[in-house]
C-alpha cells in the first residue's frame, strides 16, 4: 500500500520535474507508457485473472483507436463522445469475438482470438476512406473541454494518469468482488466451478468484454496521443507486445501491466537511443534491433521469475 502511494506521488510529480528540467519529451513518453499500461492491465484481467490466453487483444485497442480517430477526422472532436464510442465499439467487438472464441479451449482459443484480430487488421487495411494501410493523421487531439487543453503534454499526461489510476482501482475492486472470486476460481479449476453451479461461459465472456472495453479506451488515448493511427495498432505483433508486457510485469498482479509496459518501452527506448560504444563497434546496427535485447530480458524473467517483476518484488516483501 505504501509502495503504491509512493509510486502515485512520483507519477504526479514527474511532469512538473521534467518541465522544470526542460525534458518535455519525457512527459509525452511517459504518457505513452501509461497508455500501454492501461492496455496491458486490461489484458491482465483476461490473461492473469481470467486465465484466458487471448492472443488478439490488439483488436480491441485498435478498434478503439480507429473509432476515436474516425470521429475526430469527421469533425466530432469531443472526447466525451469519441472515447465512450471507442469503449462501446470495443466492448461490442469483444462480445462477438468472445462469444465465439470462448466455445474453444487451449491452443484453439489462442488461435481463434489471433485469427479474429488479424481479420480486423486486414479490414482496417482495406478502409481506403480512412487512410488504408497508410493510416490516418488527425488534425488535433480530442477535446475534453473543462478548460483542459489535451494538446498540452502536461495536461494530457494528467488525464492519462487519471484514467490509469481509475483503471487500476477498478481492477482492484473487481478482482476482490464476487465476480472476481469466481473468475479466479475458473482460472484455477474450471470444471469444478461449473460443478458448483456456476455458468462459467457467461463469466468468462463478461470478463472478456470488460477487458475489451478498457482496451478500447486505451486505443482512443493512443490515437489522441500520437494524433495518428495506422493498421499496425491491430497487428498481431501488437497483441504479442501486450502479452509480453503482462508476462514481464506479472501475470495476475495488479501492477503487472504497468510494470511490464514501463520496463518494455523503457528498455526499447534505452537500447535504441543510447547505444553502447563497445557493442556498436561489433554490431553497428544493433540499436535497430532493440527487440533482441528485450527478448533476452524476457527470457531471464520467464526462467528466473515466472511471476514477473511484480512477483519478484512482492515475494521479497513477504520473505
Amino acid at each position, binding site marked *: 500500500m505504501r509502495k503504491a502511494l509512493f509510486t502515485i506521488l512520483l507519477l504526479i510529480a514527474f511532469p512538473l520535474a521534467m518541465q522544470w528540467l526542460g525534458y518535455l519529451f519525457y512527459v509525452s513518453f511517459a504518457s505513452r507508457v501509461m497508455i500501454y499500461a492501461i492496455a496491458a492491465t486490461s489484458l491482465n484481467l483476461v490473461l492473469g485473472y481470467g486465465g484466458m490466453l487471448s492472443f488478439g487483444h490488439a483488436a480491441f485497442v485498435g478498434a478503439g483507436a480507429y473509432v476515436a480517430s474516425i470521429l475526430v477526422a469527421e469533425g466530432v472532436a469531443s472526447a466525451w463522445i469519441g472515447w465512450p464510442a471507442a469503449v462501446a465499439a470495443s466492448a461490442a467487438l469483444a462480445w462477438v469475438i468472445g462469444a465465439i472464441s470462448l466455445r474453444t479451449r487451449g491452443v484453439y482459443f489462442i488461435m481463434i482470438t489471433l485469427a479474429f484480430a488479424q481479420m480486423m487488421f486486414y479490414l482496417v487495411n482495406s478502409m481506403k476512406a480512412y487512410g488504408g494501410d497508410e493510416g490516418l493523421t488527425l488534425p488535433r487531439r480530442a477535446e475534453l473541454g473543462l478548460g483542459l487543453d489535451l494538446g498540452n503534454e502536461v495536461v494530457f499526461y494528467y488525464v492519462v494518469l487519471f484514467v490509469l489510476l481509475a483503471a487500476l482501482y477498478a481492477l482492484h*475492486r*473487481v478482482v*476482490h*468482488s*464476487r*465476480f*472476481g*472470486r*469466481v473468475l479466479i*476460481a475458473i482460472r*484455477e*479449476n474450471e*470444471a*469444478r*466451478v*461449473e*460443478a*458448483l*453451479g*456456476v*455458468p*462459467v461461459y457467461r*463469466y468468462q465472456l*463478461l470478463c472478456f468484454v470488460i477487458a475489451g472495453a478498457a482496451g478500447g479506451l486505451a486505443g482512443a488515448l493512443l490515437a489522441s496521443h500520437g494524433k495518428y493511427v495506422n493498421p499496425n495498432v491491430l497487428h498481431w505483433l501488437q497483441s504479442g507486445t501486450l502479452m509480453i508486457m503482462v508476462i514481464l510485469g506479472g501475470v495476475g498482479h495488479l501492477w503487472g501491466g504497468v510494470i511490464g509496459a514501463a520496463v518494455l518501452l523503457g528498455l526499447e527506448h534505452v537500447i535504441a537511443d543510447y547505444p553502447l560504444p563497445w557493442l556498436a563497434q561489433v554490431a553497428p546496427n544493433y540499436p535497430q534491433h532493440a527487440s533482441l535485447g528485450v527478448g533476452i530480458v524476457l527470457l531471464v524473467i520467464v526462467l528466473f521469475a515466472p511471476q514477473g517483476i511484480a512477483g519478484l518484488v512482492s515475494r521479497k516483501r513477504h520473505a
Partner: protein
Amino acid sequence: MLELRNVTKRFGGVVATDDVALEVAQGEVHALIGPNGAGKTTLIGQISGSLRTDLGTIRFMEKEVTALRQHERVGLGLARSYQITSIFKRFTVLENLALAVQARSGSSFSFWRPVAAEAALFDEARMVSREIGLAGRLEVTAGNLAHGEQRALEVGLALATRPRLVLLDEPMAGMGPEESLRMIALIERIRSGVTVLLVEHDMDAVFRLADRITVLVNGRVIATGRPEAIRADPQVRRAYLGDELAA
C-alpha cells in the same frame, strides 16, 4: 427423487453405460458398486450433467433434466464430488467453501463490493467446515492439507451448495482405514439432511452406510436391492463380490 430410464453413453465404439435404470428415493443412502471400468463414474457424469446422455431420460425432483446443463442441475439441488480430488488448491479451506456457498447463493455478477465484506458467506462456510471436520483448518491453503482432509474438503464443496441429492464419487479413494472411518462418520452425519448416491469400492463402508445398493457390471445394472439381498445374490457374487466376501 432421482429416476434414470434407459440411460446409455457410448464413447466411440465403447459402450460405457448401457440401458441403465436406477431410482434413488428421498432420504436414502444409495450405493453404486461394480468392478473397475463398470461405468460408475460415467454414470455420475451423466447424472450430474458434465457428460451428455446419448439415450434415455434422467428425472430429478419430478422434472426431466436430461437436456439441462450441469450448472442448471446444481441449481435444482443436484451436486457431485469427484473421485480425483478437484479442489481449489491455492485457496484456503475457508475460501474454497465460501466460493461454493457464493455459487449457490444468488448471482455473482457483483463487481464492486468486496466479497470479504459478506459475512453471511463466510458464516455459512464455517458451518460447512464443522460438518466436514475442518473447522480448525480454515486458514490452511487447500493444497497443503493432508490427503484425508482434502477428500473431506472435496465432499464439503459439494455440500456447501446445499444440495438435495449429492453424488459422491469414491469419497474414500486412497484413504487409510482411519481416514475411511472419519469419512463414514461424515456421511452418517449428513445423511439426515441430504440424499446420497455413493460410488465406493470400500465394501465395509458400503455395507455400513447403504440403504440400498445397485450393482453395475459392464455398463449394465445386474442387481438392485437391500444390502442383505445384494450380498446373497449369486449373480453379484460371481461378477463382483465373491472374492472379497469369501476372503
